[in-house]
């Protein structure tokens, strides 16, 4: 009976803290519910020594990091944030499997001092499952401000493990936390698994526990814990039993039915009630209130965001103002356009030069010029110069040009998240998003898409179900990003004589794009299984708080690096390929695009575009090159028509207003740009899905452009 050894696994000291290269290594897992400040704690502890990966076979990020403390190396794994270990969601399965199968030396459970009632539930489940645990009570400072005092020693005695108060944000209590972790790892602090008294349920659990010893597949789980979980109807454990010991599965189900009949209530409810009763008893003895928190500001904000009339407008206004500020910093929109309209075009140019993208572009083109002149002075062949300056530097530039924008968008996203406003926006917009069968949470990544589609796709990770993540990622590229706003502005002003017509066309294109996004969402919801799934909203509304610059900074840095690491190589290779298409032809290196492979492709594609009124090789070529970054559509049009400005290029093409409008629509909707595609592929890693992603956007763009072309020709006003 090897089982017995584990059954009384009160402590298994020393053995697990291994010696490696003369230094002790301790493996620590960090668990905690969402909004307890677990990620902040992780970042404070490991600083720059952290690595991002994926949990095997999942789209959920796995953060690991290291820190050294008096010659001991602690390796931290940040488990996904979950409210429980019931294995109902992917995150819960990951967190539980890691603890059960990897058996870390210590599990640190982070709870929130401000909302102990809800965040202790996970801690309790970890304590019931595992013996080597340290509880970190975070946000002690915020709790103190609200007049809450947590009696840590008393709580520690009640739980049987060290309980440490910390403030991750202020870096308080970290030393003590690490000391406690090391004490538990070395066996110096004796800890034990928590056994709750499940009352009437305990009898059935004990009966089942005896049987479970016969199933070797359950070896990793504490038998008494597994027995209670099976009575609750734990689907992961049932899966294990169904595979390994089907006869026990039947026994477990019988036991559950008997318990339910004889106790007159569902075992799952009884077990949860027992845990909550334990928590409320624990908190009654360990938490002291002195004075009431000031809630006036919070109440006022919630009154606005959660009201029937003001909620949605307030949410949309908040989002839009954030997006416009991001636009203004990055490209100067709308200030540049306003200055131009007022006739101060010199001032407008100055402003544009000092925006984020203006500075990045200036730096990149300066670098390309210097490299080109240095190389040509040394007599390097034009092919090589072009390869270096346009291909390689262009590729690096394509990545760098995206970074500031992505960083910026995540700074603002992080700001909304950290203040607690984001949760309110999700709630306020839920009714609207439900119409296209997405939850309110999906509005946020999609709104990010107005800035850049890359963070939009990365942002879909916050969505609850796999299906919703996928649907939102598919739809995100249809949201006109800022690069497309630049093209649309240029096309609209060049193609339409009056400012009013240009503005109308611009607004029309945005509306068409949003409509297309809505249609695609509805279609996808019918195609992607599970078809009957209706998004159910469940959002915790954390108390509002003053944003912490450090938290937002980490959030943005993490995400920007993530993008660089995952999508960087793909973007670089694809932009090299596009360079080859534009600069190489049947006769080798070519100076003018008319001899390139791209021209051949453009001419081949052009007839396909004829039905939507765009059957010109120049346009086809521009669209092909727009794949690198949508901005290149304009540049290529200018080169291909041998013009000097966008206006000249377009007048040479002599497009009718309806053709112009169709070009704007098609350029907006067709094909996600390279960076977006790379991000999508990096996120899902299923080539067929990436192809479907491209195909869907092409088909949709074509269909909608066709409708636009036909309708706009039928209406004489346009």
């Amino acid at each position, binding site marked *: 009976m090897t089982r017995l050894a584990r059954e009384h696994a009160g402590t298994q000291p020393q053995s697990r803290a291994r010696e490696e290269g003369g230094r002790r290594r301790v493996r620590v897992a960090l668990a905690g519910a969402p909004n307890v400040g677990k990620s902040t704690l992780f970042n404070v502890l490991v600083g720059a020594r952290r690595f991002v990966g994926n949990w095997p076979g999942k789209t959920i990020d796995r953060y690991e990091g290291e820190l050294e403390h008096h010659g001991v190396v602690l390796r931290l794994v940040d488990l996904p944030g979950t*409210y429980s270990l019931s294995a109902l969601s992917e995150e819960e399965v990951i967190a539980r499997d890691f603890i059960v199968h990897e058996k870390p030396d210590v599990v640190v459970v982070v709870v929130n001092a401000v909302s102990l009632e809800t965040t202790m539930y996970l801690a309790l489940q970890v304590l019931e499952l595992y013996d080597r645990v340290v509880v970190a009570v975070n946000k002690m400072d915020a709790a103190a401000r609200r007049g809450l005092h947590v009696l840590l020693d008393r709580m520690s005695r009640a739980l049987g493990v060290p309980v440490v108060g910390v403030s991750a944000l202020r870096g308080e209590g970290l030393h003590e936390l690490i000391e406690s972790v090391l004490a538990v790892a070395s066996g110096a602090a004796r800890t034990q698994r928590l056994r709750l008294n499940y009352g009437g349920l305990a009898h059935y659990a004990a009966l089942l526990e005896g049987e479970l010893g016969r199933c070797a597949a359950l070896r990793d789980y504490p038998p008494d814990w597994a027995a209670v979980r099976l009575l609750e109807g734990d689907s992961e454990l049932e899966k294990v039993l169904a595979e390994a010991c089907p006869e026990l599965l039947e026994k477990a189900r019988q036991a559950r039915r008997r318990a339910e009949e004889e106790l007159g209530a569902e075992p799952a409810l009884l077990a949860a009630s027992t845990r909550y009763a334990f928590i409320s008893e624990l908190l009654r003895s360990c938490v002291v209130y002195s004075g009431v928190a000031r809630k006036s500001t919070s109440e006022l904000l919630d009154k606005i965001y959660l009201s029937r009339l003001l*909620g949605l407008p307030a949410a949309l206004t908040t989002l839009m103002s954030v997006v416009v500020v991001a636009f203004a910093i990055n490209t100067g929109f709308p200030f540049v356009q306003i200055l131009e309209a007022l006739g101060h075009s010199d001032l407008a140019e100055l402003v544009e030069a000092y925006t984020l993208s203006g500075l990045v572009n200036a730096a990149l083109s300066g670098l390309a010029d210097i490299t080109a002149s240095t190389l040509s002075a040394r007599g390097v062949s034009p092919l090589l110069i072009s390869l270096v300056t346009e291909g390689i530097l262009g590729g690096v530039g394509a990545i760098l040009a995206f970074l500031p924008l992505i960083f910026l968008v995540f700074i603002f996203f992080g700001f909304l998240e950290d203040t607690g406003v984001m949760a309110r926006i999700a709630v306020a917009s839920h009714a609207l998003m439900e119409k296209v069968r997405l*939850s309110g949470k999906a509005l946020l990544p999609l709104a990010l898409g107005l800035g850049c589609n890359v963070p939009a796709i990365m942002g879909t990770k916050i969505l609850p179900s796999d299906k919703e993540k996928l649907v939102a990622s598919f739809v995100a590229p249809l949201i006109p990003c800022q690069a497309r706003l630049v093209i649309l502005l240029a096309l609209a002003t060049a193609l339409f004589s009056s400012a009013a017509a240009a503005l109308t066309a611009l607004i029309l294109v945005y509306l068409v794009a949003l409509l297309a996004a809505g249609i695609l969402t509805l279609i996808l919801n019918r195609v992607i299984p599970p078809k009957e799934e209706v998004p159910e909203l469940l959002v915790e509304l954390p108390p509002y708080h003053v944003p912490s610059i450090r938290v937002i900074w980490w959030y943005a840095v993490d995400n920007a690096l993530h993008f660089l690491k995952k999508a960087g190589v793909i973007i670089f290779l694809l932009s090299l390929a596009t360079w080859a298409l534009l600069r190489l032809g049947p006769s080798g290196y070519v100076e003018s695009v008319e001899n390139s492979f791209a021209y051949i492709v453009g001419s081949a594609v052009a007839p396909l575009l004829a039905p939507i009124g765009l059957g010109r090789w120049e346009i086809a070529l521009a669209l092909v090159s727009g794949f690198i970054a949508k901005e290149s559509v304009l540049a290529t049009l200018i080169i291909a028509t041998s013009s000097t400005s966008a206006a000249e290029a377009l007048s040479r093409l002599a497009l009718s207003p309806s053709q112009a409008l169709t070009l704007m629509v098609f350029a907006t909707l067709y094909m996600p740009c390279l960076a977006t595609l790379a991000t999508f592929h990096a996120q899902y890693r299923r080539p067929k899905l990436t192809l479907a992603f491209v195909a869907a956007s092409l088909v949709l763009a074509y269909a909608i452009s066709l409708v636009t072309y036909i309708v706009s020709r039928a209406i004489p006003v346009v």
Partner: protein
Amino acid sequence: MELGVVPGAVVRVVSNSAGPVVIEAGSARFAIGRGLARKIVVEVVEQ
């Protein structure tokens, strides 16, 4: 259930206009969709 809404728990409805219902359980607030809210059986404890 994991969020603190267990049989016998006292919750306060913060907002119940259009869209999701906002409830307060303990000191934490949650917004829950109407479908889910319908599945919670309550009895009025105090106005």
